[in-house]
């Protein structure tokens, strides 16, 4: 896999400077933001609809921006080495950078629609990144799945944003927060909530939408480390945090978030233990972390407790802690995969000697993950516990979080202890340490986790509390410290660690039990997804086979039936049917003509002889010409007669070359009745509408003008001709264009045929699709 000899392209190293520079820039904002001064910049994009490219750096945005750029720096460095010798590294790097920038856009947008734009950009770029190994059908499937699942959520979210914007009168988050509109009391509140949560939950892979994330591990490890641990999946968490002051505080919000988050956390922590692929284990622990974040954003604090919004603090702290330990672990997993050739913990072990730096980094991260003092993970866990204890759902929430955490401790041991410290399996290639870019990032982040644990006050005051303030909507007063004394949270920490260690010790028995329990689930998200997609495919095929059957007769039947039915319905509904008031005085000639025409029309229908049909058609045309003549329309009558003559000539010329009607397979009786009914309805409605029109007063304004003007201004006594060549000359121009085009097209059609050999003809009968691809044509 690794092509050690391949050069690392210069750009993939240089590009690291971009996130690094951005990190420094964002870091320089920390003091002012922590001091309560948010940065804001805005330019109009579509101001008419209140869509502005507005960016807002407050505590929450800054925390995420620092994580994105900070982790991003190391990821890009790592990727430059990891992707050495792979094809399409340039595209890969570009997508990764594009993803990073989109993610920054998400966390810094002040405008909901702009946020959505960046949100979808992360969807697109992650689609491209997950499908990087596009030769592999699993990667393609995973890419499609993530696009569909997160895309579906995003569309719901867009609807939610529009509702939200309409309710609040603005898409600007700042204005929403500042405004006093009572969104919770809005009639559409529940709809907004559901729609927005659909977006956040799919993106952050909450149960039951979680399944796409483990599948997305088909992506190269740098992508997994970045997108599926530190950043993209956090977008949903970020959104919930961002909207907490706007939409939160209600029972619906609290119950939904806590419920889904807690379930996701416990469920995925359990699944993590049953996996053997390093990346899969880490993916499920990521799901657990996301569940925890969601849960604590929504967790309602019981009244009477102090005014500290502990849930918000806990969620923010955990986001921070998780990013610091998950990215290193993923990167180390990738390094192991790179050097040992496998990620399956069953065939890994004893890497400690070969990969010391990676071991160190992994150990630091795993300790933080397990929440061992004095790492940041410990501090985070303490806050989680005290928040859970003080919540409305005290016991249940605490039980859930302790259970999940205990399993996570076990998972941390699994991913570090087994590959590095365990027995080295007999047969494997000699592992070796990766080059420095592959471990330096993990190490720095691991040390940072340690540092943040040792000096929690620093991290909290500069970063986490401003962020928590943005989540809670008010500034929390919170004293962070490593050591709180022997209290209930600490006791729970001890329980967690021991339970985790115990589970690790008994892991074979435990995973067996968990595995069989999980296998008994009747339906998984993944299988439901497949069922749905196959269902859509099947429905589409059946649906299209019905509507687009390829039989012209049926198309025409539907068109005419639609016409007849819709016009008839409207006639009846609108009560337009009107019979003529008086019995018309119709002359004998008119009667005769009418009967002749009608009879000829019927002959045309019934005739089994082509010649008879042609003659009858000619009679119809001539009869109509006579009607025109009878009413003084001599020009029309003349033209009609001439046209009729030519029609008969041409029809006779063509029709006699075609097979007769007898070869037609007769319709069944039922089909003929159906056709007859549709025809009669169309005919009847036409008659009814025409009668209604003629019953209305007639307007002769235009004709009178033409008659008055034709001679003095048009210099012609034949009004009809003056209309044709002067008053409405443009119509005539179009008309003769039609005539000329029809003639040219017909001529070409007759004289132009694809030249084909007998072989090509045979082939095209078998594959009509392939026709016309590269065939010479000639004008004969």
């Amino acid at each position, binding site marked *: 896999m690794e092509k050690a000899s391949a050069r690392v392209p210069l750009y993939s190293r240089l590009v690291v400077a971009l996130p690094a520079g951005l990190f420094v820039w964002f870091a320089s904002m920390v003091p002012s933001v922590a001091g309560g001064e948010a940065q804001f910049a805005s330019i109009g994009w579509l101001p008419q609809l209140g869509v502005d490219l507005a960016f807002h750096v407050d505590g929450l945005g800054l925390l995420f921006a620092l994580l994105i750029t900070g982790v991003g720096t190391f990821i890009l460095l790592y990727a430059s080495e990891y992707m050495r010798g792979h094809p399409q590294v340039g595209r890969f790097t570009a997508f990764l950078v594009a993803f990073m920038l989109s993610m920054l856009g998400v966390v810094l947008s002040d405008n909901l629609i702009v946020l959505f734009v960046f949100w979808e950009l992360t969807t697109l770029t992650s689609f491209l990144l997950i499908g990087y190994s596009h030769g592999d059908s699993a990667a393609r499937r995973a890419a499609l799945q993530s696009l569909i699942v997160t895309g579906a959520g995003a569309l719901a979210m867009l609807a939610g944003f529009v509702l939200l914007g309409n309710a609040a009168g603005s898409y600007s988050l700042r204005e929403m927060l500042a405004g006093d509109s009572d969104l919770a009391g809005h009639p559409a509140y529940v709809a907004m909530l559901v729609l927005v949560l659909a977006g956040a939950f799919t993106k952050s892979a909450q149960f039951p939408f979680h399944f796409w994330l483990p599948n997305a591990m088909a992506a190269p490890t740098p992508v997994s480390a970045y997108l599926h641990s530190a950043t993209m999946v956090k977008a949903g968490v970020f959104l919930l945090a961002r909207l907490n002051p706007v939409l939160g505080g209600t029972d619906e919000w609290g119950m939904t978030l806590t419920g889904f988050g807690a379930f996701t956390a416990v469920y995925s922590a359990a699944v993590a233990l049953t996996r053997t692929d390093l990346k899969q284990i880490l993916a499920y622990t990521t799901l657990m972390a996301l569940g925890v974040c969601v849960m604590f954003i929504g967790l309602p604090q019981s009244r009477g407790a102090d005014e500290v919004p502990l849930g918000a603090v806990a969620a923010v702290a955990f986001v921070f802690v998780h990013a610091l330990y998950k990215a290193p672990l993923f990167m180390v997993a990738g390094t192991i995969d790179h050097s040992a050739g496998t990620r399956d913990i069953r065939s890994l072990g004893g890497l400690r000697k070969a990969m010391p730096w990676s071991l160190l980094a992994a150990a630091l991260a795993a300790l933080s993950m397990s929440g061992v003092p004095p790492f940041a993970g410990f501090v985070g866990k303490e806050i989680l516990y005290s928040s859970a204890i003080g919540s409305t759902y005290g016991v249940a929430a605490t039980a859930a979080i302790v259970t999940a955490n205990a399993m996570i401790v076990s998972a941390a041991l699994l991913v570090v202890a087994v590959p590095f410290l365990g027995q080295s399996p007999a047969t494997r290639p000699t592992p070796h340490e990766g080059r420095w870019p592959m471990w330096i990032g993990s190490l720095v982040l691991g040390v940072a986790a340690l540092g943040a644990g040792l000096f929690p006050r620093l991290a909290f005051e500069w970063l986490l509390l401003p962020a928590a303030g943005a989540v809670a909507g008010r500034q929390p007063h919170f004293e962070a410290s490593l050591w709180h004394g022997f209290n209930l949270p600490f006791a729970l920490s001890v329980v967690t660690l021991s339970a985790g260690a115990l589970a690790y010790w008994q892991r074979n028995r435990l995973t067996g039990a968990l595995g069989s329990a999980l296998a008994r689930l009747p339906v998984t998200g993944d299988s439901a997804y497949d069922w749905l997609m196959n269902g859509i495919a099947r429905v589409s095929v059946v649906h299209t086979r019905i509507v687009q059957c390829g039989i012209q007769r049926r198309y025409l039947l539907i068109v005419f039936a639609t016409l007849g039915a819709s016009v008839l319905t409207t006639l009846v509904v609108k009560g337009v049917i009107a019979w003529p008031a008086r019995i018309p005085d119709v002359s004998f000639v008119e009667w005769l003509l009418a009967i002749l025409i009608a009879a000829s029309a019927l002959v045309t229908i019934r005739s089994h002889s082509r010649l008879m049909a042609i003659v009858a*058609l000619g009679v119809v045309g001539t009869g109509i010409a006579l009607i025109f003549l009878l009413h003084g329309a001599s020009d029309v009558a003349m033209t009609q007669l001439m046209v009729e003559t030519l029609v008969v000539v041409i029809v006779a010329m063509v029709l006699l070359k075609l097979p007769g009607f007898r070869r037609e397979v007769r319709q069944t009786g039922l089909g003929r009745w159906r056709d007859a009914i549709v025809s009669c309805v169309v005919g009847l409605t036409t008659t009814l509408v025409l009668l209604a029109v003629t019953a209305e007063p007639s307007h002769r304004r235009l004709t009178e003008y033409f008659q008055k003007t034709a001679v003095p201004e048009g210099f012609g006594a034949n009004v009809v001709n003056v209309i044709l060549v002067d008053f409405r000359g443009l119509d005539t121009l179009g008309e*003769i264009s039609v005539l000329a085009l029809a003639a040219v097209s017909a001529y070409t*059609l007759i004289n132009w045929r694809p030249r084909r050999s007998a072989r090509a003809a045979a082939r095209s009968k078998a594959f009509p699709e392939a026709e016309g691809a590269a065939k010479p044509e000639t004008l004969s």
Partner: protein
Amino acid sequence: MELINAALVGVLMASSVYLMLSRNLVRFVLGLALLSHAANLLIFTGGGITSSITSRAADGATAESDSLAQALILTAIVISFSLFTFALVLAFRTYETLETVDTDAMRAAEPEPSGHPGRTDPSGRPS
């Protein structure tokens, strides 16, 4: 007069629709010709021939129906004639190439020739 003309338009319309619903392409083309006749007569009737008859009764002038309607019909006649002729040629060429005038048997463009309709895997796995 308008009653009888309207009825006639209805008959022509119904006949043409019935012809078009046939599976024989030639019948379809004949139906097309009837359809344009129906449309022309409809414009003629709707455009106000009735008033011409009453005016003839009143002042004895020569029958003069709405001249704008006449011009429209003239235009429509020529257009429908062009298209009708083209349709005839098309039917002829189709017969020559596909060797049938039965529209039910014309399957060169539709449906999609595919061994496994709809079974292509969306992710592009070779099936």
